């Protein structure tokens, strides 16, 4: 499985990358912001995009809108990464049309498994 991990925080991205690649045996692509994520997604067509919600500049929802509006990326499943644990906030994010939500901080030993479960769920 080819995953695009989008997060502006270096440390969180590194742990996520190691978790997905070493524990989950996934191929991991990285992007540090929305525009870079759109460029990589367009060029590489990953199987799934893990997209951080809170990013400076173009945030997760804004990036998602462009991905959906771009034909080559419109059908790529997106999973939001967020620190927002409140149910209301999560429902708002789901309503934007994503495959699911993973709440940060995630457990690096189970992250890949959770991604696979969400991908298998539909």
């Amino acid at each position, binding site marked *: 499985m080819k995953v695009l991990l989008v997060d502006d*925080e270096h*440390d*969180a991205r590194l*742990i996520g990358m*190691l*978790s997905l690649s*070493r*524990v989950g045996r996934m191929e991991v692509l990285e992007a540090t912001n929305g525009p870079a994520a759109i460029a990589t997604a367009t060029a590489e067509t990953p199987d799934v995009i893990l997209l951080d919600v809170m990013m400076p500049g173009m945030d997760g929802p804004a990036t998602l809108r462009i991905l959906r509006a771009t034909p080559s990326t419109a059908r790529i499943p997106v999973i939001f990464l967020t620190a927002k644990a409140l*149910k*209301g906030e999560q429902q708002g994010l789901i309503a934007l049309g994503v495959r699911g939500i993973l709440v*940060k*901080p*995630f*457990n*690096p*030993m189970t992250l890949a498994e959770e991604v696979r479960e969400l991908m298998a769920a539909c």
Partner: protein
Amino acid sequence: MELELAFPPAAREGHDGTARRRRLIRRLTAQIASSQVLANSETQVHAWRHLLRLLGRSLDCVYAVLWQVDDADDVLHPTSEWRARELRAPEFVAHVRKLRIPLGRGLPGRVWASGKPIWVADMSTDDECILAAVAATEGLHSALAVPVMLDGRVIAVIEMVSQRIEALDSDVLETVCTLGRQIGQYLRHVRGVEALRASDARIRSVLDHSLSALVAVDRRGTIELVNPAAEKIFGYSAGELIGRTVRDLFPPEDRRSAMSNLCAIYEQSRGRVTEWRGFRKNGETFSCEVSIFEFPTTAGQRFAASIRDLTEIQGMERMKKELVSIVSHELRTPLTSIRGSLTLLANGVMGEIPAEALGLVRVAERNCTRLISLINDMLDLERIDNGLVELDLEAVDTSTVVGRAFDAVRGLASAEGISLSADIASEVVWADDQRLTQVLVNLLSNAIKFSPRGSRVLVSAHTGKGGDEIQVSDSGRGIPPSHLEAIFERFGQVESTDSREKGGTGLGLAICKAIVQLHGGTIGVISREGEGSTFSILLPRPAELAAPPPPAPPYPLFNAFLATAITIPDNVLEAL
């Protein structure tokens, strides 16, 4: 008003002198009775001096002394004196000033004992006079001592000394006796005035040092009294505030609305603490807490407000919230990165690491997890306290919630060798399912941690009179009765080492309590030491959920003062 008495340079002897004295004393007595003589005397000290002078002159004496009863010492001691210009008796005066006279001794002591005036024709030859010898040397002869009575008790003795030897008839003595009683009555009044003044001074001092601003107004809304805190809050000096209409202390935009429905505002505000908007001299509007009360004065009913500026408190609250968010982000973000790294290392994801090093990595990971839990719990409590947590109340399937809570603690339970069982009699509870799960996970974690290996933790649910009750029972060590209240407080564990040894944060039960209370429910515990504990949460059903009281409307500051105009003539509204 000064008493006008004629003092002939040398009194005539005999019948004429006695008659004149009697007249003078009667006049004096009458005037004291009508308080004219002492009307200008502001204190007891002044009153006594004035009296001694008048008495001494009217009786043709040269020296008058006031002996007061000293309750502590049980003696008479001189507290005031009057000397005529012609007095030449320095030794006598010096002795008097040093004297302390016990009951029954000397002329004053005998008057004190008998409560009756005594006239001594010639003290220089009287054996019972303490200073007879000095009096003889310095030419002092006749002496009169009069008791000052208050409530049937002698409180002082006035002694007057003359340079002549003369007789005084019983009629004059009787008159003098009346005089003593009148002086006593007058003193009662003076003492009352003094006590009132002292009380005023005390109240003034309290007001001056009060941190709350105090503004009192008359029925027209005119400011009559302010304290330094009021000057500080509003930025006006006391001089500028007094006489000003209280309307000026409202922000201009509130003044008009303050003029309508005054009656309702005043009634709502009386006896309660309400929040208003105030207006400073520099044009700044600020929030404040106001408590309004009324009090009677001799000039009629008055209204006052105790006012606390909330600017600083609101600033502190803002800072507190900012701090919470800073802690949330700045502490949690690096800690989660540390824990993520440690988890990967501890699980050998980055390759084999030596056993001893692995042990250390696990210690680091475990403590990091504890720290994150503590921060999460603290933030959670802060959010609840600050009203930032809103419940998503709905009918929740009890078995589902309990099952979810079991899933969360199953790992811990199996590690501790504890079995979990459930007895669910009520199908649904009215709750926020995420928050209810959080409460159950907390209670279950505690039950598991404090239960002996091999024992069972039971969750039961049933519907009762007050709502739905969910209980978590264990057969652990129990809670001593003295700790039953404290365990629901922050860091209120029974043993201070519990959080370290059992891995808790010390906030779990405090969070449970806060969440349950947010539901309108209650949480409690029944426990026997050595036998186990049962924690119960009672959640009300929708019908039993009382509607919250409507919030107090945020009327602007001081409107209530204007309400003072309600019962006042119509022109007052225009005046304000």
